[in-house]
Protein backbone atom coordinates (compact mmCIF):
# COMPACT_ATOMS: atom_id res chain seq x y z
CA UNK A 1 0.00 0.00 0.00
CA UNK A 2 1.44 3.30 -1.12
CA UNK A 3 0.55 6.26 1.08
CA UNK A 4 0.72 9.66 -0.57
CA UNK A 5 1.15 12.06 2.37
CA UNK A 6 -1.70 14.55 2.20
CA UNK A 7 -0.79 17.19 4.73
CA UNK A 8 0.85 19.75 2.45
CA UNK A 9 -2.31 21.34 1.13
CA UNK A 10 -3.10 24.98 0.49
CA UNK A 11 -6.40 24.41 2.28
CA UNK A 12 -4.56 24.16 5.62
CA UNK A 13 -3.99 27.63 7.06
CA UNK A 14 -0.47 27.00 8.33
CA UNK A 15 0.63 25.52 4.99
CA UNK A 16 -1.02 28.32 3.00
CA UNK A 17 0.79 30.97 5.03
CA UNK A 18 4.11 29.20 4.62
CA UNK A 19 3.53 28.98 0.86
CA UNK A 20 2.73 32.68 0.66
CA UNK A 21 5.78 33.71 2.69
CA UNK A 22 7.97 31.03 1.08
CA UNK A 23 8.81 29.91 4.60
CA UNK A 24 10.50 26.51 4.27
CA UNK A 25 10.28 25.61 7.97
CA UNK A 26 6.67 24.40 8.27
CA UNK A 27 6.74 22.74 4.83
CA UNK A 28 9.88 20.74 5.61
CA UNK A 29 8.68 19.86 9.09
CA UNK A 30 5.38 18.50 7.80
CA UNK A 31 7.04 16.68 4.86
CA UNK A 32 9.60 15.08 7.17
CA UNK A 33 6.92 13.92 9.58
CA UNK A 34 4.90 12.38 6.74
CA UNK A 35 7.98 10.57 5.48
CA UNK A 36 8.86 9.22 8.93
CA UNK A 37 5.27 8.09 9.43
CA UNK A 38 5.39 5.97 6.29
CA UNK A 39 4.46 8.09 3.26
CA UNK A 40 5.99 6.90 -0.02
CA UNK A 41 5.22 10.10 -1.91
CA UNK A 42 4.53 13.62 -0.61
CA UNK A 43 1.51 15.41 -2.06
CA UNK A 44 2.05 19.10 -2.81
CA UNK A 45 -1.38 20.66 -3.28
CA UNK A 46 -1.05 24.28 -4.34
CA UNK A 47 -4.69 24.70 -5.43
CA UNK A 48 -5.60 26.33 -8.77
CA UNK A 49 -2.46 28.55 -8.47
CA UNK A 50 -3.38 30.83 -11.34
CA UNK A 51 -0.78 33.49 -10.46
CA UNK A 52 2.81 32.44 -9.95
CA UNK A 53 1.92 28.75 -9.87
CA UNK A 54 5.14 27.82 -11.70
CA UNK A 55 7.40 29.41 -9.08
CA UNK A 56 5.34 28.07 -6.22
CA UNK A 57 5.39 24.46 -7.48
CA UNK A 58 9.15 24.59 -8.14
CA UNK A 59 9.69 25.98 -4.66
CA UNK A 60 7.50 23.28 -3.13
CA UNK A 61 9.23 20.41 -4.96
CA UNK A 62 12.74 21.59 -4.11
CA UNK A 63 11.80 22.51 -0.52
CA UNK A 64 10.35 19.05 0.09
CA UNK A 65 13.15 17.14 -1.63
CA UNK A 66 15.84 19.08 0.25
CA UNK A 67 14.92 17.15 3.38
CA UNK A 68 12.92 14.13 2.26
CA UNK A 69 14.24 11.41 -0.09
CA UNK A 70 10.88 10.82 -1.76
CA UNK A 71 9.12 11.68 -5.01
CA UNK A 72 6.48 14.41 -5.00
CA UNK A 73 2.86 14.31 -6.14
CA UNK A 74 2.22 17.53 -8.06
CA UNK A 75 -1.31 18.52 -7.19
CA UNK A 76 -2.87 21.47 -9.04
CA UNK A 77 -5.18 22.21 -11.96
CA UNK A 78 -2.52 24.52 -13.45
CA UNK A 79 -0.71 22.49 -16.14
CA UNK A 80 2.16 24.92 -16.56
CA UNK A 81 2.81 24.85 -12.79
CA UNK A 82 2.98 21.06 -13.06
CA UNK A 83 5.46 21.25 -15.92
CA UNK A 84 7.61 23.69 -13.92
CA UNK A 85 7.56 21.28 -10.98
CA UNK A 86 8.46 18.30 -13.19
CA UNK A 87 11.50 20.16 -14.52
CA UNK A 88 13.08 20.45 -11.06
CA UNK A 89 11.84 17.14 -9.65
CA UNK A 90 14.67 14.90 -8.44
CA UNK A 91 13.65 11.40 -9.55
CA UNK A 92 16.49 9.45 -7.93
CA UNK A 93 14.02 8.25 -5.24
CA UNK A 94 11.19 7.54 -7.62
CA UNK A 95 9.23 9.12 -10.43
CA UNK A 96 6.87 12.02 -9.80
CA UNK A 97 3.07 11.62 -9.75
CA UNK A 98 0.66 14.13 -11.28
CA UNK A 99 -2.71 14.81 -9.67
CA UNK A 100 -4.65 14.74 -11.98
CA UNK A 101 -6.14 14.20 -15.40
CA UNK A 102 -9.79 13.27 -15.99
CA UNK A 103 -12.19 12.74 -18.87
CA UNK A 104 -12.53 16.49 -19.28
CA UNK A 105 -10.71 17.62 -22.48
CA UNK A 106 -9.28 20.56 -20.54
CA UNK A 107 -7.30 18.06 -18.48
CA UNK A 108 -5.78 16.16 -21.43
CA UNK A 109 -2.61 18.33 -21.53
CA UNK A 110 -1.72 16.67 -18.21
CA UNK A 111 -1.30 13.38 -20.11
CA UNK A 112 1.07 15.08 -22.54
CA UNK A 113 3.20 16.14 -19.58
CA UNK A 114 3.07 12.64 -18.15
CA UNK A 115 4.42 11.22 -21.42
CA UNK A 116 7.03 13.94 -21.90
CA UNK A 117 8.50 13.65 -18.38
CA UNK A 118 7.82 9.92 -17.80
CA UNK A 119 5.69 10.85 -14.80
CA UNK A 120 2.93 8.75 -13.30
CA UNK A 121 -0.56 10.22 -13.60
CA UNK A 122 -3.74 10.04 -11.52
CA UNK A 123 -6.90 9.72 -13.64
CA UNK A 124 -9.92 11.04 -11.78
CA UNK A 125 -13.02 9.31 -13.13
CA UNK A 126 -15.13 12.37 -13.74
CA UNK A 127 -16.05 13.94 -17.04
CA UNK A 128 -17.36 17.31 -18.04
CA UNK A 129 -20.89 16.25 -17.16
CA UNK A 130 -20.67 16.27 -13.36
CA UNK A 131 -20.29 13.52 -10.80
CA UNK A 132 -20.53 9.85 -11.76
CA UNK A 133 -23.76 8.23 -10.55
CA UNK A 134 -22.44 4.78 -9.69
CA UNK A 135 -19.56 2.31 -10.04
CA UNK A 136 -20.49 1.48 -13.63
CA UNK A 137 -20.26 5.10 -14.71
CA UNK A 138 -16.92 5.41 -12.95
CA UNK A 139 -15.65 2.36 -14.84
CA UNK A 140 -16.94 3.71 -18.17
CA UNK A 141 -15.07 6.98 -17.60
CA UNK A 142 -11.99 5.01 -16.51
CA UNK A 143 -12.04 3.18 -19.85
CA UNK A 144 -12.10 6.51 -21.69
CA UNK A 145 -9.18 7.82 -19.63
CA UNK A 146 -7.19 4.62 -20.27
CA UNK A 147 -7.74 4.95 -24.02
CA UNK A 148 -6.70 8.59 -23.89
CA UNK A 149 -3.57 7.74 -21.87
CA UNK A 150 -2.44 5.22 -24.47
CA UNK A 151 -3.14 7.73 -27.21
CA UNK A 152 -0.89 10.29 -25.48
CA UNK A 153 1.80 7.73 -24.69
CA UNK A 154 1.32 7.22 -20.96
CA UNK A 155 1.70 3.47 -20.22
CA UNK A 156 -1.26 1.99 -18.30
CA UNK A 157 1.17 0.87 -15.56
CA UNK A 158 1.77 4.57 -14.90
CA UNK A 159 -1.91 5.43 -14.57
CA UNK A 160 -3.66 5.46 -11.17
CA UNK A 161 -7.46 5.40 -11.41
CA UNK A 162 -9.26 7.52 -8.81
CA UNK A 163 -13.01 6.81 -8.34
CA UNK A 164 -13.60 10.10 -6.47
CA UNK A 165 -14.51 9.60 -2.83
CA UNK A 166 -17.50 11.77 -1.80
CA UNK A 167 -18.49 13.02 1.65
CA UNK A 168 -20.41 10.47 3.68
CA UNK A 169 -22.27 13.29 5.46
CA UNK A 170 -24.00 14.31 2.23
CA UNK A 171 -23.53 11.42 -0.23
CA UNK A 172 -23.73 8.32 1.92
CA UNK A 173 -24.85 6.07 -0.95
CA UNK A 174 -21.57 6.70 -2.79
CA UNK A 175 -19.38 5.10 -0.11
CA UNK A 176 -19.98 1.54 -1.32
CA UNK A 177 -20.16 2.60 -4.98
CA UNK A 178 -16.54 3.75 -4.66
CA UNK A 179 -15.55 0.42 -3.07
CA UNK A 180 -17.22 -1.36 -5.97
CA UNK A 181 -15.47 0.90 -8.48
CA UNK A 182 -12.07 0.02 -6.96
CA UNK A 183 -12.86 -3.65 -7.60
CA UNK A 184 -14.02 -2.97 -11.15
CA UNK A 185 -10.99 -0.81 -12.06
CA UNK A 186 -8.56 -3.64 -11.32
CA UNK A 187 -10.29 -5.91 -13.79
CA UNK A 188 -9.93 -3.43 -16.61
CA UNK A 189 -6.40 -4.48 -17.48
CA UNK A 190 -3.90 -7.29 -16.94
CA UNK A 191 -1.80 -6.60 -14.89
CA UNK A 192 -4.46 -4.96 -12.73
CA UNK A 193 -4.85 -1.20 -12.98
CA UNK A 194 -3.44 0.79 -10.07
CA UNK A 195 -5.93 2.70 -7.97
CA UNK A 196 -5.85 5.70 -5.65
CA UNK A 197 -8.34 7.64 -3.52
CA UNK A 198 -8.40 11.02 -1.82
CA UNK A 199 -9.32 9.23 1.37
CA UNK A 200 -10.11 11.94 3.89
CA UNK A 201 -12.86 13.40 1.71
CA UNK A 202 -15.06 10.62 3.09
CA UNK A 203 -15.16 12.42 6.45
CA UNK A 204 -15.11 15.99 5.19
CA UNK A 205 -17.80 17.93 7.07
CA UNK A 206 -17.95 15.40 9.93
CA UNK A 207 -17.12 16.26 13.56
CA UNK A 208 -13.40 16.33 14.32
CA UNK A 209 -13.39 13.30 16.61
CA UNK A 210 -15.32 11.20 14.09
CA UNK A 211 -13.03 11.92 11.13
CA UNK A 212 -10.11 9.58 11.93
CA UNK A 213 -12.55 6.75 12.74
CA UNK A 214 -14.32 7.03 9.40
CA UNK A 215 -11.01 7.51 7.56
CA UNK A 216 -9.44 4.40 9.10
CA UNK A 217 -12.28 1.94 8.56
CA UNK A 218 -13.12 3.23 5.11
CA UNK A 219 -9.45 2.80 4.23
CA UNK A 220 -9.53 -0.83 5.42
CA UNK A 221 -12.73 -1.41 3.47
CA UNK A 222 -11.03 -0.10 0.30
CA UNK A 223 -7.87 -2.03 1.06
CA UNK A 224 -9.91 -5.25 1.18
CA UNK A 225 -11.28 -4.30 -2.22
CA UNK A 226 -7.73 -4.12 -3.61
CA UNK A 227 -6.86 -0.43 -3.35
CA UNK A 228 -3.18 0.16 -4.20
CA UNK A 229 -2.64 3.69 -2.86
CA UNK A 230 -4.27 6.51 -0.95
CA UNK A 231 -3.71 10.21 -0.53
CA UNK A 232 -4.02 10.16 3.23
CA UNK A 233 -2.49 10.91 6.61
CA UNK A 234 0.28 8.32 7.03
CA UNK A 235 -0.06 8.22 10.82
CA UNK A 236 -3.79 7.54 10.60
CA UNK A 237 -3.23 4.78 8.04
CA UNK A 238 -0.56 3.16 10.22
CA UNK A 239 -3.12 3.14 13.04
CA UNK A 240 -5.64 1.60 10.66
CA UNK A 241 -3.26 -1.23 9.76
CA UNK A 242 -2.80 -1.95 13.48
CA UNK A 243 -6.56 -2.46 13.71
CA UNK A 244 -6.94 -4.48 10.52
CA UNK A 245 -7.36 -7.85 12.21
CA UNK A 246 -10.09 -6.51 14.49
CA UNK A 247 -11.79 -4.81 11.56
CA UNK A 248 -11.75 -7.96 9.44
CA UNK A 249 -13.14 -10.00 12.34
CA UNK A 250 -16.03 -7.59 12.89
CA UNK A 251 -16.65 -7.44 9.15
CA UNK A 252 -16.88 -11.26 9.14
CA UNK A 253 -19.43 -11.12 11.96
CA UNK A 254 -17.11 -12.37 14.68
CA UNK A 255 -17.01 -11.10 18.26
CA UNK A 256 -13.76 -9.45 19.33
CA UNK A 257 -12.40 -9.03 22.86
CA UNK A 258 -12.44 -5.22 22.85
CA UNK A 259 -16.17 -4.51 23.13
CA UNK A 260 -15.88 -0.73 22.75
CA UNK A 261 -13.77 -1.11 19.63
CA UNK A 262 -16.20 -3.66 18.26
CA UNK A 263 -19.11 -1.23 18.67
CA UNK A 264 -17.15 1.56 17.04
CA UNK A 265 -16.23 -0.61 14.06
CA UNK A 266 -19.73 -2.08 13.75
CA UNK A 267 -21.45 1.32 13.79
CA UNK A 268 -18.98 2.77 11.31
CA UNK A 269 -19.39 -0.22 9.02
CA UNK A 270 -23.18 0.17 9.18
CA UNK A 271 -22.83 3.79 8.08
CA UNK A 272 -20.35 2.97 5.29
CA UNK A 273 -22.47 0.08 4.05
CA UNK A 274 -25.65 2.15 4.23
CA UNK A 275 -27.36 -0.03 6.83
CA UNK A 276 -27.99 3.02 9.01
CA UNK A 277 -28.52 6.60 8.03
CA UNK A 278 -25.49 8.78 8.74
CA UNK A 279 -25.76 11.50 11.40
CA UNK A 280 -22.88 13.37 13.05
CA UNK A 281 -23.69 11.60 16.34
CA UNK A 282 -23.93 8.11 14.81
CA UNK A 283 -21.34 6.72 17.25
CA UNK A 284 -23.50 7.79 20.21
CA UNK A 285 -26.61 5.96 19.02
Amino acid at each position, binding site marked *: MLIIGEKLSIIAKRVREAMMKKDKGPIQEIATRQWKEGSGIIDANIGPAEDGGEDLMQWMVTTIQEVVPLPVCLDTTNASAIEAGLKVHNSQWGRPLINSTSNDPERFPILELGAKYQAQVIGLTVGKGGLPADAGERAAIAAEIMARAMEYGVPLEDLYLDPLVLQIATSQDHAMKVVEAIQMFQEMNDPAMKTVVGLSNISNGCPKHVRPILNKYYFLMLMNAGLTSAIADAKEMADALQEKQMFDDVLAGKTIADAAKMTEIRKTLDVIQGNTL*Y*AHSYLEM
Partner: protein
Amino acid sequence: MAFTPTKETYSGKVYSVTIGTGDGAVTFGGENVLPFHSFEGAAPNKPVIAYEIQDVPPADWPENVQKPFAAVSGDPVTWAKHCQDELKATALALRLVGTHPDRENRSAEEAAKTVKDVLAAIKVPLIILGSNHPEKDSSVLVAASEAAKGGNCVIGKAQEANYKTIAAAAMANNHKLIAMSELDINLSKQLNILITQMGFEKERLITDPMCSALGYGLEYTYSVMERIRLAALTQNDATMQPPMLGDIGMYVWKVKETQAPEADLPHWGALEERGIAWEAMTATGLLVAGAELLIMRHPKAVAEVQKTIAELI
Protein backbone atom coordinates in the same frame (compact mmCIF):
# COMPACT_ATOMS: atom_id res chain seq x y z
CA MET B 1 -55.62 -19.29 -9.93
CA ALA B 2 -56.36 -16.30 -7.72
CA PHE B 3 -54.14 -13.26 -7.92
CA THR B 4 -52.05 -12.69 -4.78
CA PRO B 5 -50.60 -9.21 -4.50
CA THR B 6 -47.00 -9.04 -3.36
CA LYS B 7 -46.73 -7.58 0.12
CA GLU B 8 -43.76 -5.90 1.71
CA THR B 9 -43.17 -6.28 5.42
CA TYR B 10 -41.37 -3.61 7.36
CA SER B 11 -39.29 -3.83 10.52
CA GLY B 12 -40.12 -0.37 11.87
CA LYS B 13 -43.15 1.70 12.75
CA VAL B 14 -43.94 5.41 12.86
CA TYR B 15 -44.80 6.70 16.35
CA SER B 16 -48.41 7.63 16.81
CA VAL B 17 -48.74 11.11 18.28
CA THR B 18 -51.84 12.47 20.00
CA ILE B 19 -52.33 16.22 20.29
CA GLY B 20 -54.98 18.27 22.06
CA THR B 21 -57.18 17.24 24.99
CA GLY B 22 -60.56 15.64 25.68
CA ASP B 23 -62.98 15.15 22.79
CA GLY B 24 -60.95 17.42 20.56
CA ALA B 25 -57.77 15.32 20.69
CA VAL B 26 -56.54 13.82 17.42
CA THR B 27 -53.95 11.16 16.68
CA PHE B 28 -51.77 10.77 13.61
CA GLY B 29 -48.90 8.45 12.63
CA GLY B 30 -48.78 4.92 14.01
CA GLU B 31 -48.46 3.12 10.68
CA ASN B 32 -46.00 0.34 9.92
CA VAL B 33 -46.35 0.67 6.14
CA LEU B 34 -45.49 3.21 3.47
CA PRO B 35 -48.07 5.97 2.88
CA PHE B 36 -51.43 4.59 1.76
CA HIS B 37 -50.10 1.00 1.76
CA SER B 38 -52.68 -0.04 4.35
CA PHE B 39 -53.10 -3.34 2.47
CA GLU B 40 -49.64 -4.33 3.68
CA GLY B 41 -50.09 -3.68 7.39
CA ALA B 42 -51.55 -1.25 9.86
CA ALA B 43 -52.31 2.41 9.14
CA PRO B 44 -54.57 3.17 12.10
CA ASN B 45 -54.71 6.96 11.74
CA LYS B 46 -55.46 9.32 8.88
CA PRO B 47 -53.22 12.30 8.17
CA VAL B 48 -54.39 15.45 9.97
CA ILE B 49 -54.83 18.82 8.29
CA ALA B 50 -54.51 21.94 10.46
CA TYR B 51 -55.88 25.28 9.30
CA GLU B 52 -53.32 28.03 9.47
CA ILE B 53 -54.26 31.23 11.31
CA GLN B 54 -52.10 34.17 12.43
CA ASP B 55 -51.74 36.50 15.39
CA VAL B 56 -51.99 39.47 12.99
CA PRO B 57 -54.31 39.99 9.98
CA PRO B 58 -53.03 38.15 6.87
CA ALA B 59 -52.24 41.28 4.87
CA ASP B 60 -49.29 39.49 3.28
CA TRP B 61 -51.39 36.58 1.95
CA PRO B 62 -52.57 36.76 -1.69
CA GLU B 63 -56.07 38.12 -2.06
CA ASN B 64 -57.61 34.80 -3.07
CA VAL B 65 -56.61 33.11 0.16
CA GLN B 66 -57.41 36.20 2.29
CA LYS B 67 -60.94 36.30 0.90
CA PRO B 68 -62.41 33.18 2.60
CA PHE B 69 -61.36 34.64 5.97
CA ALA B 70 -62.05 38.33 5.25
CA ALA B 71 -64.81 38.62 7.84
CA VAL B 72 -62.92 36.86 10.64
CA SER B 73 -59.18 37.29 10.21
CA GLY B 74 -59.01 40.67 11.97
CA ASP B 75 -58.91 38.83 15.28
CA PRO B 76 -57.20 35.50 15.92
CA VAL B 77 -59.88 34.24 18.30
CA THR B 78 -62.72 34.91 15.82
CA TRP B 79 -60.61 33.39 13.06
CA ALA B 80 -59.90 30.29 15.14
CA LYS B 81 -63.57 29.81 16.03
CA HIS B 82 -64.58 30.23 12.40
CA CYS B 83 -62.18 27.48 11.31
CA GLN B 84 -63.35 25.16 14.06
CA ASP B 85 -67.09 25.80 13.90
CA GLU B 86 -67.78 26.68 10.27
CA LEU B 87 -64.98 24.87 8.42
CA LYS B 88 -64.99 21.91 10.84
CA ALA B 89 -61.22 22.06 11.29
CA THR B 90 -59.83 19.13 13.28
CA ALA B 91 -56.71 21.13 14.25
CA LEU B 92 -55.43 24.70 14.05
CA ALA B 93 -51.96 26.12 13.52
CA LEU B 94 -51.42 29.58 15.01
CA ARG B 95 -48.45 31.27 13.41
CA LEU B 96 -47.09 34.09 15.58
CA VAL B 97 -45.72 35.89 12.55
CA GLY B 98 -46.43 39.28 14.15
CA THR B 99 -43.56 38.68 16.57
CA HIS B 100 -40.96 38.87 13.78
CA PRO B 101 -38.62 41.84 14.33
CA ASP B 102 -39.14 42.92 10.71
CA ARG B 103 -42.92 42.76 11.08
CA GLU B 104 -45.02 44.09 13.99
CA ASN B 105 -42.30 42.94 16.39
CA ARG B 106 -44.88 41.91 18.97
CA SER B 107 -43.48 40.87 22.32
CA ALA B 108 -43.37 37.39 23.80
CA GLU B 109 -45.97 38.51 26.37
CA GLU B 110 -48.37 39.66 23.65
CA ALA B 111 -47.85 36.37 21.84
CA ALA B 112 -48.53 34.44 25.03
CA LYS B 113 -51.80 36.32 25.52
CA THR B 114 -52.94 35.51 21.97
CA VAL B 115 -52.13 31.84 22.57
CA LYS B 116 -54.13 31.85 25.83
CA ASP B 117 -57.13 33.57 24.22
CA VAL B 118 -57.21 31.25 21.22
CA LEU B 119 -56.76 28.16 23.33
CA ALA B 120 -59.63 29.22 25.64
CA ALA B 121 -61.96 29.62 22.65
CA ILE B 122 -61.38 26.26 20.91
CA LYS B 123 -61.68 22.55 21.60
CA VAL B 124 -59.47 21.30 18.73
CA PRO B 125 -55.70 20.87 19.14
CA LEU B 126 -53.42 23.85 18.58
CA ILE B 127 -50.07 23.97 16.82
CA ILE B 128 -48.13 27.05 17.92
CA LEU B 129 -45.55 28.33 15.44
CA GLY B 130 -43.02 31.13 15.80
CA SER B 131 -42.10 33.61 13.10
CA ASN B 132 -39.10 31.55 11.95
CA HIS B 133 -36.65 34.07 13.42
CA PRO B 134 -34.44 31.67 15.42
CA GLU B 135 -33.47 34.22 18.06
CA LYS B 136 -36.89 35.78 18.60
CA ASP B 137 -38.56 32.37 18.49
CA SER B 138 -36.55 31.24 21.49
CA SER B 139 -38.24 33.82 23.71
CA VAL B 140 -41.65 33.81 22.00
CA LEU B 141 -42.05 30.04 21.99
CA VAL B 142 -40.93 29.73 25.60
CA ALA B 143 -43.64 32.18 26.66
CA ALA B 144 -46.17 30.52 24.34
CA SER B 145 -45.35 27.05 25.73
CA GLU B 146 -46.00 28.27 29.27
CA ALA B 147 -49.23 30.02 28.25
CA ALA B 148 -50.44 26.79 26.63
CA LYS B 149 -49.55 24.51 29.52
CA GLY B 150 -52.02 21.65 29.79
CA GLY B 151 -53.16 22.03 26.17
CA ASN B 152 -51.00 19.20 24.80
CA CYS B 153 -50.07 21.49 21.92
CA VAL B 154 -47.40 21.24 19.24
CA ILE B 155 -44.60 23.80 19.57
CA GLY B 156 -42.54 24.74 16.53
CA LYS B 157 -40.14 25.04 15.16
CA ALA B 158 -36.99 23.97 16.95
CA GLN B 159 -33.98 24.41 14.68
CA GLU B 160 -30.26 23.79 15.04
CA ALA B 161 -29.76 27.38 16.25
CA ASN B 162 -32.40 27.39 19.00
CA TYR B 163 -33.50 23.84 19.77
CA LYS B 164 -32.21 23.82 23.34
CA THR B 165 -34.45 26.53 24.76
CA ILE B 166 -37.50 25.58 22.71
CA ALA B 167 -37.22 21.85 23.44
CA ALA B 168 -36.74 22.59 27.15
CA ALA B 169 -39.89 24.76 27.18
CA ALA B 170 -41.93 22.16 25.29
CA MET B 171 -40.67 19.46 27.66
CA ALA B 172 -41.42 21.47 30.82
CA ASN B 173 -44.96 22.23 29.68
CA ASN B 174 -45.74 18.80 28.30
CA HIS B 175 -46.15 19.70 24.64
CA LYS B 176 -45.12 18.02 21.42
CA LEU B 177 -42.29 19.57 19.39
CA ILE B 178 -41.54 20.17 15.71
CA ALA B 179 -37.86 19.72 14.81
CA MET B 180 -36.99 21.47 11.55
CA SER B 181 -33.88 21.11 9.45
CA GLU B 182 -33.26 22.44 5.98
CA LEU B 183 -33.75 19.74 3.35
CA ASP B 184 -30.93 17.50 4.54
CA ILE B 185 -31.82 14.03 5.76
CA ASN B 186 -28.60 13.60 7.72
CA LEU B 187 -29.05 16.90 9.54
CA SER B 188 -32.69 16.03 10.19
CA LYS B 189 -31.58 12.84 11.91
CA GLN B 190 -28.86 14.72 13.78
CA LEU B 191 -31.33 17.31 15.13
CA ASN B 192 -33.67 14.58 16.36
CA ILE B 193 -30.71 12.93 18.10
CA LEU B 194 -29.60 16.18 19.75
CA ILE B 195 -33.12 16.92 21.00
CA THR B 196 -33.59 13.42 22.41
CA GLN B 197 -30.15 13.60 24.03
CA MET B 198 -31.59 16.49 26.10
CA GLY B 199 -34.10 14.05 27.55
CA PHE B 200 -36.98 14.94 25.22
CA GLU B 201 -38.84 11.75 24.32
CA LYS B 202 -38.61 10.85 20.65
CA GLU B 203 -42.25 9.72 20.77
CA ARG B 204 -43.21 13.39 21.26
CA LEU B 205 -41.34 14.72 18.24
CA ILE B 206 -42.58 15.72 14.80
CA THR B 207 -40.00 15.97 12.01
CA ASP B 208 -40.17 18.86 9.57
CA PRO B 209 -37.63 18.30 6.81
CA MET B 210 -38.68 21.71 5.38
CA CYS B 211 -41.47 22.15 2.89
CA SER B 212 -41.34 23.54 -0.63
CA ALA B 213 -44.05 24.29 -3.18
CA LEU B 214 -44.78 22.45 -6.40
CA GLY B 215 -42.41 23.82 -9.02
CA TYR B 216 -40.11 25.30 -6.36
CA GLY B 217 -38.21 22.31 -5.06
CA LEU B 218 -41.08 20.04 -4.05
CA GLU B 219 -39.04 17.11 -5.36
CA TYR B 220 -36.33 17.82 -2.75
CA THR B 221 -38.82 17.76 0.12
CA TYR B 222 -40.45 14.70 -1.41
CA SER B 223 -37.18 12.84 -1.68
CA VAL B 224 -36.02 13.68 1.86
CA MET B 225 -39.41 12.67 3.30
CA GLU B 226 -39.41 9.43 1.34
CA ARG B 227 -35.92 8.54 2.57
CA ILE B 228 -36.80 9.43 6.17
CA ARG B 229 -39.81 7.13 5.98
CA LEU B 230 -37.78 4.31 4.42
CA ALA B 231 -35.17 4.64 7.19
CA ALA B 232 -37.97 4.47 9.77
CA LEU B 233 -39.67 1.44 8.24
CA THR B 234 -36.97 -0.63 6.54
CA GLN B 235 -33.99 0.14 8.79
CA ASN B 236 -36.06 0.49 11.98
CA ASP B 237 -34.24 3.76 12.68
CA ALA B 238 -35.89 5.06 15.86
CA THR B 239 -34.55 8.57 15.33
CA MET B 240 -36.49 8.78 12.07
CA GLN B 241 -39.78 7.34 13.35
CA PRO B 242 -41.57 10.51 14.47
CA PRO B 243 -44.38 11.58 12.10
CA MET B 244 -43.60 14.28 9.55
CA LEU B 245 -45.01 17.75 8.97
CA GLY B 246 -45.77 19.44 5.66
CA ASP B 247 -46.07 23.19 6.30
CA ILE B 248 -47.80 23.67 2.95
CA GLY B 249 -49.67 26.99 2.95
CA MET B 250 -46.87 29.42 3.61
CA TYR B 251 -44.72 27.96 0.84
CA VAL B 252 -47.49 27.65 -1.76
CA TRP B 253 -49.11 31.05 -1.35
CA LYS B 254 -46.00 33.00 -2.16
CA VAL B 255 -45.10 31.45 -5.51
CA LYS B 256 -45.89 33.12 -8.82
CA GLU B 257 -48.44 30.49 -9.84
CA THR B 258 -50.72 31.41 -6.93
CA GLN B 259 -50.45 35.14 -7.57
CA ALA B 260 -49.98 35.98 -11.26
CA PRO B 261 -53.28 37.38 -12.67
CA GLU B 262 -55.00 35.65 -15.53
CA ALA B 263 -54.92 38.93 -17.49
CA ASP B 264 -51.09 38.70 -17.60
CA LEU B 265 -50.89 34.94 -18.20
CA PRO B 266 -54.13 33.85 -19.89
CA HIS B 267 -52.72 30.39 -20.73
CA TRP B 268 -52.32 29.68 -17.00
CA GLY B 269 -56.07 29.82 -16.43
CA ALA B 270 -58.20 31.25 -13.64
CA LEU B 271 -56.10 32.52 -10.75
CA GLU B 272 -58.32 31.48 -7.87
CA GLU B 273 -58.75 27.93 -9.12
CA ARG B 274 -55.05 27.74 -9.94
CA GLY B 275 -54.00 28.74 -6.41
CA ILE B 276 -56.34 26.21 -4.82
CA ALA B 277 -55.10 23.49 -7.15
CA TRP B 278 -51.47 24.43 -6.40
CA GLU B 279 -51.98 24.07 -2.66
CA ALA B 280 -53.95 20.83 -3.02
CA MET B 281 -51.37 19.29 -5.37
CA THR B 282 -48.41 20.22 -3.18
CA ALA B 283 -50.18 18.77 -0.14
CA THR B 284 -51.15 15.56 -1.93
CA GLY B 285 -47.60 15.10 -3.16
CA LEU B 286 -46.24 15.30 0.36
CA LEU B 287 -48.90 12.94 1.72
CA VAL B 288 -47.68 10.37 -0.78
CA ALA B 289 -44.10 11.05 0.37
CA GLY B 290 -45.10 10.32 3.97
CA ALA B 291 -46.33 13.50 5.72
CA GLU B 292 -48.88 12.82 8.48
CA LEU B 293 -49.56 16.41 9.55
CA LEU B 294 -50.29 19.22 7.10
CA ILE B 295 -50.71 22.94 7.68
CA MET B 296 -52.87 24.53 4.96
CA ARG B 297 -54.73 27.72 4.18
CA HIS B 298 -57.49 27.61 1.56
CA PRO B 299 -60.72 25.81 2.62
CA LYS B 300 -61.30 24.47 -0.89
CA ALA B 301 -57.78 23.05 -1.08
CA VAL B 302 -58.27 21.44 2.33
CA ALA B 303 -61.54 19.91 1.14
CA GLU B 304 -59.85 18.47 -1.95
CA VAL B 305 -57.05 16.88 0.08
CA GLN B 306 -59.51 15.49 2.61
CA LYS B 307 -61.40 13.86 -0.23
CA THR B 308 -58.18 12.26 -1.49
CA ILE B 309 -57.34 10.98 1.98
CA ALA B 310 -60.83 9.50 2.40
CA GLU B 311 -60.61 7.76 -0.96
CA LEU B 312 -57.13 6.34 -0.42
CA ILE B 313 -57.42 5.14 3.17
